[in-house]
């Protein structure tokens, strides 16, 4: 059989609170080569009508990772531990975002993960975990819904 723990299908993790720190957002924007000041400079962001700097489009994945860190610090399993992901053979298959509203520096959001499904591909050579992450703001509601697939390249003896 595969490596993922398929008994976790359908699990929804408890919501985890994450605050988007401005310095962390700036570090991320700089690292990906972003130059638009609305992602870097609070004054420029405010001049453009925003309360603070914006989170770049793919920062949703980071918010999910920050929630995982919070889970581990609280003694809870993170999403990879829940599904029994093995980093030696793990690949990122797909990543998808639906945007309902912007995320800003100093926002405190709630993050919940749902393990939606496990599937197989390439005659059992690959197994795929499907995970949906929802990022919610207490007053602005759902901001981003993210879906991702994580793939195990299975050694022959582990193929289902």
């Amino acid at each position, binding site marked *: 059989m595969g490596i993922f723990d398929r008994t976790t299908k359908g699990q929804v993790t408890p919501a985890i609170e994450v605050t988007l720190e401005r310095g962390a957002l700036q570090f991320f924007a700089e690292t*990906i080569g972003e130059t*638009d000041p609305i992602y870097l400079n609070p004054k420029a962001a405010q001049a453009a009508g925003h309360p603070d700097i914006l989170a*770049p489009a*793919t920062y949703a994945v980071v918010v999910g990772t920050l929630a995982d860190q919070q889970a581990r610090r609280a003694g809870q399993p993170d999403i990879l531990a829940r599904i029994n992901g093995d980093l*030696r053979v793990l690949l990122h298959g797909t990543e*998808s*975002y639906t945007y309902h509203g912007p995320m800003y520096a100093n926002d405190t959001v709630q993050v919940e993960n749902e393990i939606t499904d496990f599937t197989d591909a390439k005659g059992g050579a690959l197994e795929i975990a499907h995970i949906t992450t929802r990022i919610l703001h207490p007053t602005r509601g759902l901001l981003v819904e993210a879906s991702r697939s994580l793939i195990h390249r299975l050694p022959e003896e582990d193929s289902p």
Partner: protein
Amino acid sequence: MSITPTTAKVGDTLPPLTFGPISRTTLALYAGASGDHNPIHIDLDFARNAGMDDVFAHGMLSMAQLGRLVTNWAGQDRLRGLSSRFTAITPVGATVTCTGTVTNRFEQHGRVLLTLKLAAHIDDGTQTLRGEAKVCATPS
């Protein structure tokens, strides 16, 4: 005249964006900035133990470039959706070129939306990401 979301037609292309070359330093910084500490991207010993010749770039670093391609053109307030399939590994040293083409312009719930087909390629021509974006094209 450069195209904008409100004027874009099917077949129009976005100004391309390049990023790189992606060094080991870039990968170390991205690991820190994103919180993705998967050692397959930053620890050569771990990568070799896992059967790889070398570390390779985070797929999400390239997807961040697809995000920049679209938001630099349309503005983030118009971005409704962004998705990507990671089709090949991006090796250390690669330069990533991101491209986008308008493939559909349609109305939904009283708004005009664009579908953009996105791609990331590296220097040797390998396509590393295949993506799509949904952009609001209603005049503001």
